[in-house]
Structure formats: structure tokens, C-alpha cells
């Protein structure tokens, strides 16, 4: 089974520039998450999609961050303009919606995109 694909793996930009990250979740996973992980900290949820609708974006800095999931499959996370404090790893994860009783539920994570803002 193919995992969650993210690109690019690494990105270096100057502050005030814009950047976009792409995620392709596991086939059949209706739920998609974007996380921000700052060095030394655990991942922080930015936004959650159910198919192509936003379920939770309460922690997304909406003045500079945006995300979309057209057609309920791939997703793009954008930062415009970037700030130094946006330097982090951006993780995409996906999970099933309905889980059969007795089965584990888990979020499957991609390898992330490491963003450095200089």
C-alpha cells in the first residue's frame, strides 16, 4: 500500500516570499490533516479536511496560511508571506472515516516538508 506522499522534501525561501506544499493521501482516506512541527516540539494540527470540506482550521494562521483540497484527494498548503517563525516541518497525514469495530484507528503520516525561512 502506497503511503502519504509529500513534496517537496526541503524548501528554503526568504521571508515575505510565498511557498506551497503538496500532499497526496493514501487512496480511500477521506480525512486529511496538515500539521506544523517546530524543531523539538510535537506536531501541531493546522487544518483538517473531510473529503473536500474543512472540518477544523482553528489553529491555522489564516492571515498568511491557506489550504485547499480540491476533489477531495490531493491537498495544497500555502504560506504567503512567510515569516522566520514559519520555519518547521510541515506534515500531512490521512486516515479512514469509518472504522470497523475492533480495528485500530490511526493517522498515516508523510515524511514531511522541511521549510527554512531566512
Amino acid at each position, binding site marked *: 500500500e502506497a503511503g502519504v506522499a509529500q513534496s517537496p522534501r526541503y524548501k528554503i525561501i526568504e521571508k515575505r516570499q510565498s511557498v506551497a506544499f503538496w500532499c497526496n493521501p493514501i487512496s480511500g482516506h477521506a*480525512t486529511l490533516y496538515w500539521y506544523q512541527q517546530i524543531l523539538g516540539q510535537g506536531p501541531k494540527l493546522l487544518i483538517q479536511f473531510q473529503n473536500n470540506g474543512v472540518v477544523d482550521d482553528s489553529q491555522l494562521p489564516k492571515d498568511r496560511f491557506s489550504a485547499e483540497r480540491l476533489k477531495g484527494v490531493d491537498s495544497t498548503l500555502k504560506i504567503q508571506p512567510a515569516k522566520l517563525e514559519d520555519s518547521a516541518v510541515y506534515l500531512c497525514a490521512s486516515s479512514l472515516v469509518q472504522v470497523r469495530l475492533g480495528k485500530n484507528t490511526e493517522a498515516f503520516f508523510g515524511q514531511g516538508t522541511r521549510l527554512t525561512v531566512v
Partner: protein
Amino acid sequence: LAKTTQPISMDSYEGQEVNITCSHNNIATNDYITWYQQFPSQGPRFIIQGYKTKVTNEVASLFIPADRKSSTLSLPRVSLSDTAVYYCLVGDRNNAGKSTFGDGTTLTVKP
């Protein structure tokens, strides 16, 4: 969302059993307990999940007391490759990625 508390770091030696305890005093009735492992430059990876009592799979065991206010991840006979950050999460099992990650426990396994 329930908050979790874990030790910041732990050291162990190869071949030993490692137990990492997580406190989650305000766990809700519907919450499950899930543990993830994260290696450098990779995303977190699911280890084990449970609701109560004991759960065991091929890589770990999870012990949950009756009051469910804490849980213990047990890694038998660790090796150098088990050096990683381990996260304890509590949350609705039907919203797997919504649970809040803390800062995790950095386990260092020494030869």
C-alpha cells in the same frame, strides 16, 4: 481535547525492557489512547492503541489501569533502532488525527 504528560527523555540499554508512562487525568469516556513513534526526518508512525486493560501487538504492549488516567507503553528488549521520540495521544478513535500531540518522550538506547 485531553492533555497528556510524559517524561521528556529516557535512557536505556540494548536488550532491556522500556516502560514509558503517560498521564491523562481528564481523559473522556469516548477517548482512546494511541502511541506514535517518530524517527528524525520522518513523520510519526502508529505503534499501538487501546481503551482499557492491556493490548499487545508484535512490537509493544500498552497497559491501561481501570481509571484510565494513565497508560504505560512497554517496549520489550529494545535495540539501538528503537531510539526515537514516543508520543502519547488521547482522543476520539473516529477522528484519528485530531488528537493533540505533546512534546513526547525522547528514548535513547545505548549499546
